[in-house]
């Protein structure tokens, strides 16, 4: 980790409009250092838009977002501030895995030695020279996570990183996230896999209809309910 300011994401009453649609309204959220914060919500709730806003891709119509004490889009080397894996298909498919990472490293001013390191971490070294078009979904997820780790950033944002991973891959991500959080990094993960949330998450934020309806430690969130799923359904008003 390289940032001087404490790691973390502070989302302060943001609004996001895409065209005429208001996607996010008055969203406030904190992802603290040393914690894995899971972002939950039904399809279309605005989770991906929120993560894209944090990464500096989507302009805000109101409010502000601070990443490690600054604005992600203003960072001299954005990948060294915030590691992102937002799409399982965000690659040039004609590239090999190693070329994709070399491209990212060069564009971000990151030492090329990190490419070999993150390939190794992601278990992709044997496939580094293969074209991404031949990668399975699980391998593309691993490559995306490798890209997020490239800048050794203190803050990580991942959008459904477990989709398509086999059981070994899921165990790998679980261990990796726990390790990264233990190092003091701030990690925000959008997910629908409640088992994983409960296994290694510290905090949950629930987004519904473009608003945050819960933002609390997992133990507090589940307290009084039979399970995380029940607590979630109550939070989004779908409990029967």
């Amino acid at each position, binding site marked *: 980790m390289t940032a001087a300011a404490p790691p973390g994401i502070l989302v302060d009453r943001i609004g996001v409009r895409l065209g005429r649609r208001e996607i996010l309204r008055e969203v406030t959220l904190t992802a603290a250092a040393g914690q894995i914060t899971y972002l939950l919500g039904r399809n279309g709730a605005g989770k991906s838009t929120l993560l894209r806003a944090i*990464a*500096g891709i989507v302009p805000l119509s109101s409010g502000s977002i601070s990443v490690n004490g600054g604005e*992600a889009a*203003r960072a001299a080397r*954005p990948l060294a501030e915030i590691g992102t894996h937002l799409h399982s298909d965000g*690659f040039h498919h004609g590239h*090999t895995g190693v070329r994709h990472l070399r491209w*990212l490293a*060069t564009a971000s*001013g990151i030492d090329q030695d990190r490419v070999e390191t993150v390939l190794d971490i992601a278990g992709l070294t044997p496939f580094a020279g293969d074209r991404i078009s031949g990668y399975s979904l699980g391998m593309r997820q691993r490559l995306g996570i490798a890209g997020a780790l490239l800048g050794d950033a203190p803050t990580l944002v991942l959008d459904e990183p477990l989709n398509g991973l086999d059981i070994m891959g899921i165990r790998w991500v679980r261990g990796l996230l726990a390790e990264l959080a233990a190092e003091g990094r701030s990690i925000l993960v959008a997910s629908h896999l409640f088992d994983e949330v409960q296994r290694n998450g510290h905090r949950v934020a629930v987004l519904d209809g473009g608003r945050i309806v819960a933002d609390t430690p997992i133990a507090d969130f589940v307290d009084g309910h039979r399970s995380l799923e029940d607590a979630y359904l109550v939070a989004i008003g779908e409990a029967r």
Partner: protein
Amino acid sequence: MITVPASVSRIGRAVAAERIRTGGRRGLLSTVVLPGAVILPLLVTAVVATVSEHFSTISTDVEVVAVGTTNSVYWILTFTVTVWCCAAAYTQSAAERGDVGDLGRILFPRSGTTVAARWIFYGGGAAICAVALAILTMIALPLFYPNVYGDVDLVSAEGLRFVLTIPMYAVSAVGISLGVAAAIGNPAASVAVLLGWVYIVENTVALIPNGYTIQGYMPFLNGVYGTGQEIVVMPPWGVNGALVYCAGIAVLMFVIACWASRLRRR
């Protein structure tokens, strides 16, 4: 100690990244630019020269007109620059779209950074490639095809003008292409519009009423004319003016590219 401004540093990284993105055995440079911008124009030049030279030596019935310096690099100007333009346009459109576009936005939050980097990378590549091929052509043609191309002279005023002006035209043409691509936003459509404009619209516009006058304002033809190449076009501002006009259009299109790219990010 001299510190490099952050924006310059970012553009430098973007240029280097573009080199990695397009390089490699299966990259755009190997699969499109090398065959289209290097091999094709050299092949066409060699075939045309061989046939002309052959006819000039076998028969007295067929008169083969000697070719001067000002018409010796026509195929380089026609193919090399245009293929680089297509590569730039395709990349500009493809890299700004979809999930990959999101990565680009994270890496380079300011849209102008990537557009400027692509102008530098593809414009520089087109300039170096075209002028190198032009020099090679002006040296090889009189050497191997003396009957028809004996008058071609690299160190003549016309030859030296090519050496100076071809890079200017190449850089300008790529700038125009980036503007077209950023405005259209679709890779295939950008290339199609560009090729249609260069090879069809600019040449056939002369067929409509007042067409010759309109043709004098066509940016690519102005650029080619400005290099000193012999073509039938009548810009109202002369040879040097034509080159300046082409460069002016390129700057305008670059501004449009930056603006369009920024709008697409909203």
